[in-house]
């Protein structure tokens, strides 16, 4: 049975973003999700941080303070090997969710 909660969707988006971009700060993640989804998905900026810290505590991502291009201090996140495995699992789980929902919609 897939774990098909919506919170998991945010995790998936964050993990995927970090997988594609290497290291990013929270603001960068927001921007990336927005642009990659052609403005379809907008992450509520405040809710991103609890998710980031939860994922860090789970050991999926790691963080480090660093300077932005404009010389501003920001906390950068990066995927850990454990996070990469989690990403694969979450992707699989999400695919199942989508297939499941599609199947239901088709017959409804």
């Amino acid at each position, binding site marked *: 049975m897939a774990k098909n909660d919506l919170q998991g969707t945010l995790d998936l988006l964050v993990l995927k973003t970090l997988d594609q971009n290497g290291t990013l*700060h*929270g*603001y960068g993640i927001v921007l990336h999700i927005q642009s990659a989804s052609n403005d379809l998905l907008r992450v*509520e*900026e*405040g*809710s991103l*941080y*609890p998710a980031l*810290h*939860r994922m860090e*505590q*789970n*050991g999926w991502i790691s963080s480090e303070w660093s300077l*932005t291009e*404009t010389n*501003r*201090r*920001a*906390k950068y996140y990066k995927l850990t090997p454990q996070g990469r495995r989690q990403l694969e699992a979450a992707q699989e789980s999400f695919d199942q969710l989508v297939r499941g929902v599609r199947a239901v919609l088709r017959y409804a």
Partner: protein
Amino acid sequence: MALFRRLTNLFRQRDLDRDIADELQSHIDLRVESNLADGMSPEEARRDALLRFGNPTSTRERVAAFDASLALAGFGRDIRYAARQLRKSPGFTFTVIATLAIGIGVNVAIFSSMDAVVLRPLAVPALDRVMVLSEQQQRGKQPVTLADFTDLQRQNRSFEDLAVLQGADYTLSGAGDAAQINADLVSASFFSVLRTQAFVGRVFDQSECQPGRDAVAVLNYGFWKRHFGANSSIIGQKIQLDQHDYTIIGVLPRTMQYPPAVDMLLPFAPTPAQLSDRTDHAYLVIGRARDGATLKSAQSEMQIISERLSKSYPATNQGWTIHIEPLLNDINGDLTPLYYKLIMGATMFVLLVVCANVANLQLARGVARRSEIAMRTALGATRRRIIRQLLTENILLALAGAGLGIAFAAIYLHLTLVLMPARVARYIPGWDNISVNGRALTFSVLLAVFSGIVAGLAPSIEALRIRLVDQLRSGSRQATGHSRLRSIFAVAQISLAVALVIGAALMAKGMSSMFHQADVYSPEKILTLHPELPAKRYDTPEKQADWYSNALDRLRSLPGTSRVELASALPYTDSGWQLDLTIENRPTAPGKLQTAVRLAVTPGYFDAFHIPILDGRNFTQGDSMHSTPVAIVSRRFADLYLSGASPIGHRIRLGDNKTPQPWLTIVGVSQEANYGLWENDLPPAVYTSFAQQPLSGSVITVFAKSEPMSLATPARKALASIDAAVPLDPVLTYRNLIRDNLVGLIYADSMLALDAFIALLLSAIGIFAVMANLVGERTREIGVRLAMGATKEDVLRMIIRRASWLTGTGLVIGLALAFALARLVANLLRGVRPDDPMTFAAVTITVVGIALAASWFPARQASRVEPMKALRSE
């Protein structure tokens, strides 16, 4: 990992909070920056950024919640809260931690020393699989014969391997003072049975256990340290044992002091004649049981082998069976574990008293904290939450107590090690291994948690029995059911203290009577020397007698000596061997044994040790090696073996018939003298003349006119002038000789006395706390009583009556407990009666006195209550 991160987060909460705030701020700043780049005005840019972000404060808290999972944060809060509460009442905290530290400290110390001495005296893997084998017939257990050993080794399936040991004494020369050493000849399998290797160098192997190749020695650690200063370069060096060269090839580890008091191990190289001997029961056999073999299965196999042997060799093996016993029992003997159990039991009692005391203090504190707990309950704390909080506090206290207790235990153990005379410690395997070990540490932490829970639970439950509304409304102290609980704790403490004090007092009394039983001889004025003539050079009785007569002459001419005598044993030091006895023309009934203790003495001995000759004559100078061998027997001998008839003129022979001893003609009867320190029974004694039948070893007693130890050096010099290679140690006073024999008992009793003292002190504190609290709670009532016309004396009497009731109840229970303990002590020691009325009465009076003294202060305080003040304060 994640758990570890959460735990570390707990302790840097503040840093973490700042870190989160910074991160959120940097997000907002970045948004503002890009808004500005998009062309917004600064104010607009900021407003937009904040709007998009939402409430930063609530976000911050939500983020922080993930950094330390809730349960753990709660735990951390509990600890911090508990620490804060404890800091607020330093007096209480100090008392509890100190009390626990003493209780836990004593327990850790005793457990550490018991662990080293009784539970694991040797660092042998799977020590419980190592067995001692002996051969048994009606007369009792004896060592094994070598031919039987060989057959056993070949036939048995229960043991992986068997090893043989034979004791031997040597004179070590070539290095410093000549020394008499104890060696054991052991087969190479000894090392594999005990699974031990050399600490330095190597041990010997099978090829060295052959006559001619066996001149190698493996030292025991203690001997190596004592004699060679733990110098590794002695490996490969030569030493002389009875003037033969041996090469030192190795040293055993410190934890392998087996057999006890053996200085070195030499290869056992039996001759063919020895190997075929089935009569000489002289060899100790140990074996390691195979996996799967039990004591029972091994024993039944031994039964089968014994039967087979007695069928094949009826002349020598008829009636003999093989018996197995764990090596641990053999090492420990009977007394040591018993002492330790006694002390350990008493010490656990102390821990119980400690727990009761801490619980009592907690209860008193619980009353003061009732409002606080009521407030927390009113603010929504659940019962579980509060109990958890209180337990955390207790465990914190207990752990602090355990930490301090371990320090206490370390000091304590150091003292016991320093105070034990080296010549006694040598005989206790494992004594050198005593230290605060990991197991003791585990034990102490378990005890700490256990006592925290026991001590904390009752007050915790008590705290929740409060009716919330009542408590908040009155906000005052009032007597409730909890005082019954406190009284129970106080009573329990008194009972335990009474039992311990009586036990310790009885033991001290028994010990003191044992210590002083030789006082009639003024043992502090007698110097004893223990010469042992090397067998190789003093190989005839004539040579031995010569040395002794020379020695006596020289010592008697030393200034400051009033008399010098010789004996094979002194009263109250050693019961000596019981030898088989034959009386001429009086055959014994089959199966009935006649035995006696044999003592070789000089003629002056009877006078010096107050043993009157009742009948016949004493030995004289005329009793020499060339005259008829004579003997003096004790009165009990005559009563037991000659039905009370005069034994004078009868002829007796000592020892078994294998090695014929001369017939001795009885010429006198002496009064009974007690040679055993422990036994109350007096075995029949046969005295022989030292000059007529000398022994290789003896005790020389030098009666000094003044300080005996000042004679030690002149005496050594005088004897060295005859033969410098004769070992004389130990040289000490008769009193100290007795003390050394009692050292285990002294140790046990000091422990018990310490335990009793602590228990008594704690119960005094306990009853004081109960009474002080009682007075505090009843101040208002006392005020009313005084206002209504009660006198101060009435109030005093009322409080003392209450204290007496508590003490009385504690005493009754305690005396019953003490009686049980006393019976145990009486079994251990002579001179102790379980119904010793003096001790019981003295202890009762002491405890009552202490309890009343402890309650006197609170009672006086009560009688001084100002009625108006007490009434107005409500």
